């Protein structure tokens, strides 16, 4: 009898410990590194902008919150708020582009790129304002 009580206590403690550990890990989980996530969609930057220009609500249904890998020509590379870098990709003649806020780990790598160069960027689509917006963007380089 005493032994079975002891076993129950040990099992309950083990479950509590595992549950607590899982809760702590989940609670303190950092946003995922996008470079390790397979994209939900791969798209040409110009085509992506056209989809949003034509029907924002429909495009949101397809892309909002999704991991998108966009390919296009760099139109602008801008410093934002002193410490951030934003890359605009798409047709330079178009008013609207795909606007990619880079993950800070990629600030050194973007220095190798110039306006007019082709680039592949993966990020989370956050919607459409003046441009199609992507956050936490990483540069994908072909190996």
């Amino acid at each position, binding site marked *: 009898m005493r032994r079975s009580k002891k076993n129950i206590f040990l099992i309950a403690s083990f479950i509590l410990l595992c549950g607590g550990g899982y809760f702590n890990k989940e609670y303190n989980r950092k946003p*995922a590194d996008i470079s390790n996530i397979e994209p939900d969609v791969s798209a040409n930057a110009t085509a992506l902008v056209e989809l949003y220009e034509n029907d924002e609500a429909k495009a*949101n249904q397809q892309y909002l919150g999704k991991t998108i890998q966009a390919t296009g020509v760099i139109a602008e590379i801008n410093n934002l*708020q002193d410490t951030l870098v934003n890359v605009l990709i798409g047709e330079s003649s178009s008013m609207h582009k795909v606007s990619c806020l880079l993950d800070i780990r990629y600030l050194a790598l973007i220095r190798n790129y110039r306006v007019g160069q082709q680039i592949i960027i993966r990020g989370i689509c956050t919607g459409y304002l003046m441009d199609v917006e992507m956050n936490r963007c990483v540069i994908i380089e072909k190996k």
Partner: protein
Amino acid sequence: MRIVFAIVLSTMASVTGLAQTRYFTKSGRITFYSRSPLENIEAVNNKVVSIWDVNSGQIEFSVLMKGFEFEKALMQEHFNENYVESDKYPKAIFKGIIESSNLLGLAVDRSAAVKVNGNLTMHGVTRPVTATAVITVKNKLITAAASFSIVLADYKISIPSLVADKVNKKITINVNIPDYQLVVKK
């Protein structure tokens, strides 16, 4: 002929005037804070779009809800899925008026506190908002900063009782525009 010339001149003047008074940015920052005894929550959005017509004082801010970044992934997921329902309401928009905007005088270096009145639409609810903003001109760079508070219940944002102690029902919102650019009509 004189009448035609006068019409052309006045049209040109109004177009030029409009072009000279509109300022714009795509790189504004909005942060919000929730302070509670158990936990402080902070989120930042660095892609705020704002348009300001100095002559009329009309000002507008647009921000994507999914663009708010949190330190912890779980907070960000709860914010988007349970609180602001960003799939259903992807944007928050403020439309307002800066009082005496046309008297600011942006040609010289200065800093002025102005009153802003308007309506904030978020989570499908529109509510009036009043704030004091500080507009600064330094070396032709125009910056703006404002801070105000909102009550989550006003926007029909409900916090589950399980985490009610961790989220303040009143949220402080800070708006920071680091570089208003003059809109030049092409």
